[in-house]
């Protein structure tokens, strides 16, 4: 299975080209309105491109030059949405058997396919229930089984965890990791944990364009783009490799180790949790002076943001330091916490 896609949709400012190799899981990251759902809609055949072409194996999904358009049901592309959308008038088993039945399987064989996939998602005991009798997590598991039972050549997942309780999302994520092995999958998400857990490769979309792509860890642990760094919750510093670290645009030098040649363009990443905030200049380590732009509560920590760098500090400390927007403070971190790599 090879999937090659290149399409533009002027109305939504969308222009994306990407490919999926056989057995590869690609995560598409990006904020709301970045064009993630448009990508899936075009691939599944629920939207039509102004211009472009997509090929899945030897099937032309659409080709605006030749005017070709394969209707959704003949594409072999299954779409799992945020909400499970189980057919309310069918039992769980009938829902999962829907794909095989539509493909022309006998009642008997569709039933055994359905039971196989229900067992695969550990939901066999729910077979006779109606969708209205299921919890959100159960329903989404069955939606996964239903999508897989139709034996798609390409599986599209549209934020499958987004509508679930935080408490059930991890179990579904684990289950997905198991059943997606060896499949060609495009998973849209805004959660980088999904990307780390499930994806071989990530594609970062912003405003209808790809801003960065590559192997998951390389992109998310060493972002080259402020937008990707934001998704990965990393501080990104960009400059030129110096003798002892990286020299920023403002001329200041941040210390850190790297094998990178001095003088070459470099990027550096540091986690906000590794950054300290103090009113006075730290006596040692890296330091950046900044004005507090805003404070954002994040669980049991508060993220203190400045133009260049952010830090996660304890709420009590934020109160003690009287951190308010406009306050000038020092951000400090150890050289060992900094990863320097080619920009």
């Amino acid at each position, binding site marked *: 299975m090879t999937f090659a896609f290149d399409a533009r949709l002027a109305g939504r400012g969308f222009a994306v080209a990407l490919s999926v190799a056989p057995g590869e899981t690609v995560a598409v990251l990006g904020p709301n309105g970045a064009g993630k759902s448009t990508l899936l809609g075009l691939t*599944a055949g*629920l939207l039509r491109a102004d211009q472009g072409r997509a090929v899945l194996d030897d099937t032309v999904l659409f080709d605006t030059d030749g005017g070709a358009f394969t209707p959704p*049901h003949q594409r072999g592309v*299954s779409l799992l949405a945020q909400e499970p959308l189980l057919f309310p008038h069918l039992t769980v088993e009938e829902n999962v058997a829907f794909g095989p039945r539509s493909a022309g399987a006998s009642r008997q064989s569709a039933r055994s396919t359905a039971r196989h996939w229900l067992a695969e998602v550990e939901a066999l005991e729910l077979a006779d229930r109606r969708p209205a009798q299921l919890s959100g997590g159960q329903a989404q598991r069955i939606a996964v089984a239903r999508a897989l039972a139709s034996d798609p050549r390409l599986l599209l997942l549209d934020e499958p965890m987004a509508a679930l309780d935080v408490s059930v999302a991890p179990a579904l994520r684990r289950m997905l990791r198991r059943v997606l092995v060896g499949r060609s999958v495009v998973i849209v998400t805004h959660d980088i944990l999904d990307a780390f857990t499930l994806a071989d490769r990530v594609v970062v979309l912003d405003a209808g364009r790809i801003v960065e792509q590559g192997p998951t860890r390389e992109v998310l642990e060493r972002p080259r783009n402020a937008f990707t760094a934001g998704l990965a919750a990393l501080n990104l510093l960009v400059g030129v490799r110096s003798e002892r670290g990286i020299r920023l645009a403002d001329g200041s030098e941040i210390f850190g180790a790297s094998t990178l040649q001095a003088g070459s363009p470099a990027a550096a990443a540091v986690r906000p949790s590794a950054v300290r905030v103090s009113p006075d200049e730290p006596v040692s380590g890296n330091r950046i002076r900044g004005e507090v732009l805003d404070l954002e509560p994040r669980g049991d920590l508060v993220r203190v943001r400045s133009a260049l760098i952010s830090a996660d500090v304890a709420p009590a400390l934020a109160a003690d330091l009287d951190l308010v927007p406009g306050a000038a403070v020092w951000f400090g971190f150890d050289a060992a916490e900094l990863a320097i790599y080619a920009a």
Partner: protein
Amino acid sequence: MSPATGYAGVPRWVAAIAVVGALFVLLPLAAMVMRVNWGGFVGLVTSESSVSALLLSLRTSLAATVLCIVLGVPMALVLARSTFRGQKVLRSLVLLPLVLPPVVGGIALLYTFGRRGLIGQSLDALGISIAFSTTAVILAQTFVALPFLVLSLEGALRTVGTRYEAVGATLGAGPTTVLRRITLPLVLPALVSGSVLSFARALGEFGATLTFAGSLQGTTRTLPLEIYLQRETSPDTAVALSLVLVVVAVVVVGIAHQAGSTKYLRGAL
């Protein structure tokens, strides 16, 4: 609707007017029931002409309902699921029989299917005569009842939306399979209640039937026509038959109400 403890917020004077409105609907029915000659009721209702009118009404109304479903489901689907130029105008025109005086509908049908009518002429040449036959009764009833089915089904189709249909398509189901296995089951409650309403409208049809089909006993004289005729000669028969129609109407409304609240859809929509 709201629980006894909740804030209702209906001013007393509004409630008072509502009571007057309810009485306005219920009082005439009660007045009619009070006039029923219970001693002769069975005899009046089972007389030859009564039974013949009742059976004709049921037969033609059922046929008209089937015709409404056959024609109305595709119409509702096209109106709800596609967009084309003049769609709004078409929808208004399709719903016209709802507001048209039935007599006018009857005249329109006469000039379409009558012996000299637009289509009737050609049909006449083929030896088919529709006007003043039982077929004419069914056509007149279908004409006035069709909008009820189209209207309720189109609304339900819009409410259900296309998301389930899209899922079905990505699971490999073609448009006909999606229609048969997803769309129609999802709107089944609306289809049932729409059909029941169409049946009720067909059962009560008077003006268009009289104009287009006439009033021949056993052929075109349906129950409403029989009631109208008996009113002159035997008021007791008219009242008794009216009561039969009222009972049928109450049953029909009950069924339509039940169908509209099918359990599985409540969680889904």
